[in-house]
């Protein structure tokens, strides 16, 4: 039920992001989703890719510091209040969302949102109990 996300440390200067995309492109790894968090000095690029292991290996060889983070891909009904009902559920269970970002592709009539929770296992359990669809990694990488 979990999804592997690549996190990459980037110095905040021109060309560093392009270096990541160059390596991925040369390795024929496709980017499925991404988000970039930044400060004045550095940024953290978070990626869901078609081939996690390959991307990690190539980026490391390219001199980047890379980490693996477990995130959860959740189907969110694509209508007003769709996301809110899920967040409300999490709030009631006191599960914190560290960050989230939207997946590019839709899953049928649903949007897909990537969540990083402070308590991943409890979050999955809660979502499943409430019949929220979680997109498994294998499916997501190929979407």
């Amino acid at each position, binding site marked *: 039920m979990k999804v592997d996300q690549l996190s990459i440390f980037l110095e905040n200067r021109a060309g560093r992001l392009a270096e990541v995309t160059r390596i991925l492109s040369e390795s024929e790894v496709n980017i499925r989703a991404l988000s970039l968090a930044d400060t004045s*000095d550095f940024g953290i690029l978070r990626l869901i890719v078609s081939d996690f292991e390959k991307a990690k290996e190539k980026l490391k060889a390219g001199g980047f510091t890379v980490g693996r983070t477990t995130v959860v891909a959740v189907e969110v009904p694509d209508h007003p209040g769709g996301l809110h009902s899920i967040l409300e559920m999490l709030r009631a269970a006191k599960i914190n969302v560290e960050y989230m970002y939207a997946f590019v592709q839709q899953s049928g009539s649903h949007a897909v949102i990537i969540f990083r929770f402070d308590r991943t296992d409890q979050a999955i359990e809660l979502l499943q109990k409430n019949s929220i669809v979680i997109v498994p990694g294998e499916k997501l990488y190929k979407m």
Partner: protein
Amino acid sequence: MIFDVEHETMPREELEKLQLRRLQTVVARVYENVPFYRKKLDERGVKPEHIQSLADVALLPFTEKQDLRNHYPFGMFAVSRENIVRIHSSSGTTGKATVVGYTKRDIKNWGQMVARAFAAAGATTGDFVHNAYGYGLFTGGLGLHNGAEELGATVIPISGGGTRRQAMLLRDFGATVLTCTPSYAMHLYEAAKEMGIDVKELPLRIGIFGAEPWTDAMRADIEEKLGITAIDIYGLSEVMGPGVAIECALVKKGLHIQEDHFLAEIIDPETGEKKGPGEVGELVFTTLTKEGIPLLRYRTRDLSRLNLAPCRCGRTTARMERVTGRSDDMLIIRGVNVFPSQIETILLETDGLSPHYQLIVDRENNLDTLEVRVEIDEQVFSDQIKNLQRLESKIQKNIKEFLGVTAKCKLVEPKGIERSEGKAKRIIDLRKAKQA
């Protein structure tokens, strides 16, 4: 004015006789009371009675800063703790600070030396001293304080920090002498200017600046902006503190060493061989009168040269040229001594950070800045900004706590630090480029 005419203008021959007598006494004393020196002297087969002339100082072993650290905290003291009336210490990580102790007489002598320094700078009993050196373990604050009182001047123990308040008091009290680091003098000047206070218009007339390297260009700038005479003072806590040597206001060419208290030598930092008069090398001091922690041939790592010619001011003491550099990698940041190895220790102790780091030292608005760049590795990397920022502030906090210096920490990519021939370039000092 000369505060101690007898000792400061003593004919050279007589001075050297006095130095020899005191050298013989100190060697005998450390041989008796400091196991470290007894062992060192025995290893060399040297007995106190072998010291028959000043040239025989070459028989004595050197003392390094590391020796003081190895005997942390009180292992190098030559008297029992009951006879120590004060302790000072230089910054350092736990267990690595250098600790010095003073007897009542040491404090008295030190006060006299600093009083001589004030007088050489042109200060008299009627002066009003704004002492902005930090008070505490650092020798600057209390050292200058005692000297000003010994002279009979009025002293304002303002200490460091609170610059706007300092500018206000400088104006309201009408101090005539300012004592601090040269960079702080400029900082204070800028702060005063912002508040609409023109330091030039105040009664201030003398600045006694030390604890960090500065140039004649900086002196000219300070003198012009503050409308004062700026005097260089030299000292280091291991040897005594500020006041080991002082420029005279009359000539301002070289710092008069208090030779009745210290025997100065210049050596080749590589071979340890003595260098001739006028040759540049590392300054080495033997304390001649200190009781608490007498040191034989203490290696300062400061590069300078000696001038034995009598000075136009009337003093006969040797003058050391303004320190031009260091024979090791020590940095002086806002008057605080920082060794790259200390930063390395702090990084390793902070979540086992990688030893790949670089120190960028610069000067902004006349104040030194230190940036510590640390390469991030997988162990400490996180997908969350807050964790990395927490790491940065933790490093900053540890550096502040252990070394007493404010630093900015910046995480960089692996291999983000320039390496020359495989060896990481640890220090980039941009201050030097600006002075040139």
